[in-house]
């Protein structure tokens, strides 16, 4: 199906399986239906963009996918394990071991070296050889020479790469990135997206929440939410068909990376 061969060859259950997922918030006396029945399957090594206007429920979906929150209805299976009704402390363990977060504003600990920042999730999950694994992760994002720098000595793009290394170090089942280029200029954003592309090529499952088309364009699959429902779930090739009404057409001559192009 996908041009780049998956590195994990063993057949396994889908990484993410959502069945009729609901999330209802109570705001005062009113009930807000943030998610109204999301059914979604994400396979190993998919490269997914989640898009949608604000209020569409994409942040809620992101929080539930990241095990930061639990749904009020429906099922969420992460690698076959039902995680929709777990306790806070079990969820914390899953976040630590199976999910790598990348945030818009990097969220690195100040006064802590890049290396220590990358080691942080592993201190909570109690993994061994933390230092070695952190160094390997930094090497993958090309920042080995900045391992002992503090965040305030790093540029925005470098900070985000450290954050990526932190997400990577434990070889999580999914990497969840929330507007990863939102705080970066376009050139640096490109640089970060290039790292995402290469991770995808290495077989990593990636989910990126974004509202920028040119970011979404680099993914293999785009899921669009409006009012808590999936209104579009398409492989990238379809997105740009002029008959798709929900997305703005790409500007003429917009660069489409051809080297990593997948089959529609």
């Amino acid at each position: 199906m996908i041009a780049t061969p998956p590195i994990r060859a063993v057949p396994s259950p889908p990484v993410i399986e959502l069945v009729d997922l609901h999330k209802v918030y109570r705001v005062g006396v009113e009930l807000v239906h943030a998610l109204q029945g999301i059914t979604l399957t994400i396979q190993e090594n998919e490269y997914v963009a989640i898009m949608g206007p604000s209020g569409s429920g994409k942040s809620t979906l992101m929080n539930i996918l990241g095990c930061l929150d639990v749904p009020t209805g429906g099922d969420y299976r992460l690698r076959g394990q039902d995680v929709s009704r777990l306790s806070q402390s079990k969820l914390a363990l899953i976040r630590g071991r199976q999910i790598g977060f990348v945030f818009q504003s990097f969220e690195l600990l100040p006064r802590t070296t890049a290396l220590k920042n990358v080691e942080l999730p592993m201190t909570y999950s109690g993994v061994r050889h933390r230092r070695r694994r952190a160094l390997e992760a930094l090497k993958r994002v090309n920042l080995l020479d900045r391992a002992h720098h503090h965040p305030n000595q790093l540029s925005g793009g470098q900070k985000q790469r450290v954050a990526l290394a932190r997400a990577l170090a434990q070889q999580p089942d999914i990497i969840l990135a929330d507007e990863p280029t939102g705080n970066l200029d376009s050139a640096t954003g490109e640089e970060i997206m290039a790292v995402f592309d290469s991770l995808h090529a290495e077989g990593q499952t990636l989910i990126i929440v974004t509202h920028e088309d040119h970011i979404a364009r680099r993914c293999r699959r785009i899921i669009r939410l409006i009012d808590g429902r999936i209104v579009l779930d398409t492989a990238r090739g379809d997105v740009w068909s002029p008959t798709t009404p929900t997305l703005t057409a790409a500007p003429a001559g917009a660069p489409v990376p051809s080297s990593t192009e997948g089959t529609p």
Partner: protein
Amino acid sequence: MRKLGRWLWAGVLFLPHLIGSVVRSVPTALVQIWANKIRALLTVLGIIIAVTSIITVVSLVEGFGNYVTNFLRGLGTNMMIVYPEWVRGPRGEFLRRAEMDIDDIHAVDAGAPAIRRTSPLVWSSATIEYGRQQVTNVQLRGTNEAFQPIRNFYVDAGRFFGAVDVENGSAVCVLGREILRKLECDESIVGDYVHLDGQRFQVIGLLESKGSFMGENQDETIIIPWTMAVKLNPYARTHLAFYVEAMSEPQIPDAEGQLVRILRQRHGIKPGEANDFGAFKQDQILQQFNQVRVIATSVLAGIVSISLLVGGIGIMNVMLVSVTERTREIGLRKSVGARRRDILTQFLTEAVVLSTVGGAIGIALGYGFTHLASLHPDMVEVTVPLWSVLLALGFSAAVGIFFGIIPAFKAAIIHPIDALRHE
């Protein structure tokens, strides 16, 4: 029962995790404190004051305590001093001293089986001259040959006067070491002559060095036969005091009872009337000292509890501020796998490290003050007892735990999503 056991077992299994978590949190805590040095210092001021007071006061009280104990041991543990009391008039006013003479002393010596020996004591002062040197207002004690064993205070050069010198009222004297120093002479003075209030005395011995007690330097003493002392001071002949040595320490109450009975009888005191003499025992010195110790300890406890309270509230305040400031950090930590107890441990460790750093500064200051106090020449020897250091550290850590638990709990229960949204 089984459930309790399982809980305990779970606790034991959790312990290594807890210790590991605490140990990992300490460097973070130190970095945080270092990043906010001034704030941290101001926060722990109360704890610094508390710990400094604990160390200083405990060391001084202990120092004096050791000193008093040693002094009492030096006096001879079975000793008391009996002296004529003031006679009071009908309105309680002091009229004159009651009388006590050598026959009273002999009677006590002969009639009280619990008393090993007695020794008269004439208490006055004199000016000593030797060559061109002169020392005024020196303690002059008239006593007899039993002084040495009773007071446990011996000559270490020359000899003490004997029964014959006392019998004859010889003009001989024994000098304390401090007198020697003030007269600027060495042990060659033994055999030589000095003048005491103008009268010629031969120096026959030198007392060993004993140090001072409560401002009274025991080495600045001249001892002469009491028979000679009453010649210099005739009033004392009928107003003698005397040392009493009991057979043993437990027999001191018996000895006191016996001598009271004998003296009351001899002085014709009717039942119901007060004694016209007093007995000064060592345990009175101890009691007086213990009163001082109790006062010092309660003042200390007051200072310490107030400053610990202030320090604890300071820590709680600063930790609450810190939790708010670092909400995003908490969110991040939670999103990368920190559980509530990890966050709780982290912030609790920070509070404890903060208060313990305060405690450590206080201990250093306490050592400093103690050292400063011991520089004074009349100061007794003081050392900081180890238990006071441990106590102070324990107190500061306890304050950290007690006042850190609420902020830490607040940090632990923050929901990661809210925390990451926090501005």
